[in-house]
């Protein structure tokens, strides 16, 4: 039997490594000027000019209730597409594409990296590294309030 594989784009937020299905990823961009959009949630950083298309950008740290970080050389914007929307996600770094076999993926514990299991597709352990797989549709659902599990986490 052919083992089913999954390609993920790996990125870093704080001290954890995360993955999103490569099929959802359009491109990985360096940080470029972002125009603030008034009266939007704090995690929405604004819109950017992505080769002529106006694309909304959200700060993933802020989306998960972590403290925001000023952009540095490693900061990247991952442009993802889900349910017909293009959205840019600001992450601390993005530098890897990995092949996972589905058997590497374990069901999510209650909380991983401080994020509720609702927003996760599971965790994968490879060579001692742990990847938290995000459920993009939930992460981008504006009606979802992603509360941090464990108030002490951010302190």
């Amino acid at each position, binding site marked *: 039997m052919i083992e089913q594989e999954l390609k993920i784009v790996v990125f870093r937020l704080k001290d954890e490594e995360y993955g999103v299905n490569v099929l959802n990823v359009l491109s990985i961009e360096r940080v470029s000027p972002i125009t603030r959009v008034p009266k939007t949630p704090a995690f929405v950083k604004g819109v950017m000019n992505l080769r002529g298309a106006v*694309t*909304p950008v959200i700060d993933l740290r802020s989306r998960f209730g972590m403290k925001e970080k000023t952009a540095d050389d490693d900061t990247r914007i991952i442009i993802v597409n889900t349910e017909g929307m293009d959205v840019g996600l600001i992450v601390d770094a993005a530098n890897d594409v990995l092949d996972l076999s589905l058997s590497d993926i374990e069901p999510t514990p209650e909380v991983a990296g401080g994020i509720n299991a609702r927003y996760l597709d599971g965790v994968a352990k490879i060579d001692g590294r742990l990847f938290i797989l995000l459920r993009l549709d939930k992460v981008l659902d504006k009606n979802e309030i992603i509360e941090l599990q464990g108030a002490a986490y951010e302190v």
Partner: protein
Amino acid sequence: MDTSEYLDIFIEESKEHLQSINQHVLLLEKQPEELATIQEIFRSAHTLKGMSASMGYDDLANLTHAMENVLDGIRNGKLHVTQQLLDSLFVSLDHLEEMVMSIAAGGDGKKDTKELIHILNGILEEDAQDKAQTDIRNEDFSSYDEFERSAIHQFLEQGFLGYRIEVTLDKECLLKAVRAYMVFNALENLGDIIKSEPSADLIEREQFNQSFFVTFITQQEAATIESELLSISEIKKVTLTPLQPLSSSEQKKAVEVDAQKGSTEDSKKNPQPKSAKTIRVSIERLDLLMSLFEELVIDRGRLERISSEVKNAALQETVERVSRISSDLQELILTMRMVPVDQVFNRFPRMVRGLAKDLHKKVDLQVEGAETELDRMVADEIGDPLVHLLRNSLDHGIEDPEHRIRSGKSEKGTITLKAYHSGNRVFIEIKDDGAGIDADKVLNRAVQKGIISENSARTLTGRHVYELLFAPGFSTAEVISDISGRGVGLDAVKNKIESLGGSVSVDSKAGEGSTFTIQLPLNLSIIPSLLVEAGTETYAVPLPSIIETALVDPEDIIMVHKQPMMDFRGKVIPLVSLNDWLEVPQEAKLEETQRAVVIVKKENKWAGLTVDGLIGQQEIVLKPLGNYLDAPFVSGAAILGDGQVALIIDCNSLFI
């Protein structure tokens, strides 16, 4: 034949023809004896039949054929235009439309049309019986088509003699075609052959029995012809029947038919006689052209910026030229995308007719300014809201005939649909001469539905009351009818129109009727705008919403109930700080000095928007923000010359 590549053209043209038939049948209803109208219908039906037959849509072809027969009956004066006839034409049109739609949607265009064809044929037969006693000569002439009939008529008029000659060949004749050929040859030396039965083609192939008929125009005597023909061997018998001049009514018919025949032929060579040199371009290509041009506009902005920074005379001159040319290009592309609003309006007469019948009301729809042009994209979207408003006028506006007579109006109500340009916008008005809107009823309903409180209801007057009609969850119809008032009320209309960058308002006078006015932008994607500064941010304000810009001194600002106001041309208008409104992050509060104000309007309401600076005017390309963001005060975004994104302010939201 592989017809797939013609399918798009077929669908497009079929729709056009159906629309034309629809319009003309409506006309026919008003002027049943108008021959030109019938000709127009006949022509469209005929083309449609031909097209669908060659595309292999038999049901479509059969039904149009049956229609064609009926139409032919009308134009030959055999049939009278009756209500029953018109109704069955309309039903046929509905069927045809359904079939074409099915084909457009990828279906096979099949439909059971037997019953309908039966009805159409029934109309023909019924009438044929009525006319059973038409004279025999008329029957004779019916074997000629219009062209032949008119040719015969003309010759007879010029003093020629006409004969219908029956030529019978000898039974033993072996080479019938050769003999027939000799007959034709002999006749051609004596005059003109109008027609042969069977056709010359069939005769040549010997597809006839012992005899054939020739209709012949000559100046020779019958005896000469007879002897000439009998001199050909193996000819057994020649019978000449003289043709009688047509009766005057037939003459008239023949002439008219002749004139029409000519134009039919013209139109075949030249399907659009008015604009002979046009080509069809698919809408996708135009859209592509537009989006390419939008890219160009963005780069033009960038070039202008660079040139102003570099300050090189040669570069500046070139950039100016490029800008000028691209402005011309822009105008051209935009006009290419413009379509007459008639494309939207043309289905309404039919719809109103149907609805009026259903509602047992008498309504006359008057269309004005159908030639007014607007962007295709707007035209595509505006149909539904207009349908809704028309239904609304028919259902709630126009009273039933008894009611109208009682209130001293004519039995027949009038709905006027009017389009016109004004400035950079298109206006569409829907006006009825019905009962008008009962303001008290509207207020009661609004309070009852919890849209406004009883207290605020008392303060509202005039237009403000009618505005309530557009509030979500409002419906004034006392009886929920099929036509309108199905809960998806006027708020849906308002939303749709606003999403197109337009607005809708209503005015009404009790007893005299109501007018709904829709305002729409001429085009949606390239907007002249004023760029303004707020803090470190740049925003674009669309020029159509701007009245003018001004400067205001701090001491001229009046505080009224904590709301800053200013005096502007004798009018006290509210002032809104863009920075506060859009929560622009600010460094230390600026010292109060003279500030720039952009005076904006929505309908007849004005407001002043104070900004930190005016940057200048620029054509910007509207880009949607996408579904993800829900930004209430922003109608879109634009990419500026430096590649940054600027948000476009939705001035309408300033007035809520």
